[in-house]
């Protein structure tokens, strides 16, 4: 009797979850997710933060405002002003946020839902290809990426990767001594012979750096290329890889706003087409938020 009840209960829970997911997909969930992105991971300038918070408040009170191009246009204009003022110093993913706000503005101009969804899907696909193939090209032509030097330096010298490096078994002392030598070289009160220092990566650092380099490069190439084909099978493969990328990369990578943006783009691409991929993208937004927990401090004991 208990077994039957449990089965019925779990079937009912699954049905309710499925129903909830269907309702989320039917709603303007891409717009809501974008607004959340703006409010939580937007530009840090006071005027953009204020505009984002006011927009969020307005949509919470009057949800239909999320369909108004004026709302998105206002956010896009404020974001663009910020970008123009900081054009050479803004992080790349801030540009991406600004483009996406303009996409949301344009998409909400036509009356028909079909045309709106087409603009959102087309641009989501374009920007995913642009991000991943653009990154792959820059990495391929970079003087320090393909040799593994870039990630070796990150593991040794970048404090943000210190906890991850320790988890992979790197001796913390190697990083500390490498940073000390780097500080000597950049200190104008010190002369370093021939302006040359030796860093202290061991074989493990070298191996981990090379593995991350290979993973990062080839997964990005694969996602970008697969999305180019616009076929069901290649799209599923690309989305699975993209989800894998989001779930794994943003644990150590300290650019969570970019991870959240990828989740929104991925969700926008599959929303109308796949229930389970939509669910996984929504889950990935939650995962990215959880990656903010201070796990680095726990690892480092600070």
């Amino acid at each position, binding site marked *: 009797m208990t077994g039957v009840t449990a089965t019925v209960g779990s079937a009912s829970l699954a049905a309710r979850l499925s129903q909830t997911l269907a309702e989320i997909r039917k709603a303007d969930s891409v717009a809501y997710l974008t607004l959340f992105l703006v409010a939580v991971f937007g530009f840090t300038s006071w005027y953009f933060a204020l505009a984002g918070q006011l927009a969020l408040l307005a949509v919470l009170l009057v949800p239909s405002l999320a369909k108004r191009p004026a709302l998105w246009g206002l956010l896009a204009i404020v974001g663009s002003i910020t970008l123009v003022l900081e054009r050479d110093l803004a992080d790349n993913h801030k540009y991406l946020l600004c483009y996406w706000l303009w996409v949301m503005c344009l998409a909400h101009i036509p009356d028909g839902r079909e045309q709106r969804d087409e603009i959102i899907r087309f641009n989501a696909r374009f920007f995913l290809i642009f991000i991943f193939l653009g990154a792959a090209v820059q990495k391929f032509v970079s003087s320090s990426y393909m040799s*593994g030097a870039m990630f070796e330096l990150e593991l040794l010298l970048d404090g943000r990767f210190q906890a991850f490096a320790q988890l992979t078994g790197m001796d913390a002392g190697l990083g500390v001594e490498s940073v000390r030598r780097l500080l000597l070289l950049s200190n104008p009160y*010190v002369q370093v012979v021939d302006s*040359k220092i030796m860093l202290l990566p061991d074989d493990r650092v070298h191996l981990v750096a090379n593995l991350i380099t290979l993973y990062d490069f080839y997964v990005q190439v694969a996602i970008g290329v697969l999305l180019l084909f616009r076929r069901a099978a290649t799209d599923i493969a690309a989305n699975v890889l993209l989800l894998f990328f989001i779930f794994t990369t943003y644990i150590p990578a300290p650019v969570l706003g970019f991870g959240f943006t990828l989740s929104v783009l991925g969700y926008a691409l599959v929303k109308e087409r796949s229930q389970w991929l939509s669910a996984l993208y929504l889950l990935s937004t939650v995962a990215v938020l959880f990656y903010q927990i201070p796990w680095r401090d726990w690892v480092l004991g600070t």
Partner: protein
Amino acid sequence: MRFSQGLERWVMLCVIPAIALTVSARQLYLSVMDDLSTWKGGGMGMFAGSEALTRFAKVYLTFPDGRRHPLLRLTDKQEELKAQVLNYPSERNLRALANSIRATTWWASTTRVPLNVFGRDGQKIRDGTEQLYDLYAAHPRTASEPAEFRVEIEYWKATYDPKTREYIGVLARTFKLED
């Protein structure tokens, strides 16, 4: 009519991608020609290069009698300007940092710091013969305090070879703010 609708549809679909591609091409150009960081400016080169770890700047004040003193302790605002220089060492950014330093009155410490010599293993080889004052930012310079110094900013780039484990700094450019 149909042509116009089709055109409108394609404009709506492609206008933002076209802007993104243009900005990205500009970023690539500035990155190659003017050392703009791959992390900045609207390309998609995050984690493509390690500019933050392979660029540094050394700032000096030079005096009419030939003395040249380094500045290590910049103000918070000047540290921000220095970070901008390292991300994009353009004439404009270098000049902004130099102007800010020139607009500050600097005080010297009472003791002097020897310019010690270190080897590539980070160990001191010998004490330096030259001794320099440690300089501190005092306050914004007023009109009644003429700047009796010029500002020099050295922009350094480093390369790292994972095989030899050598990290080598090279002076890429010296910017001098003249009178």
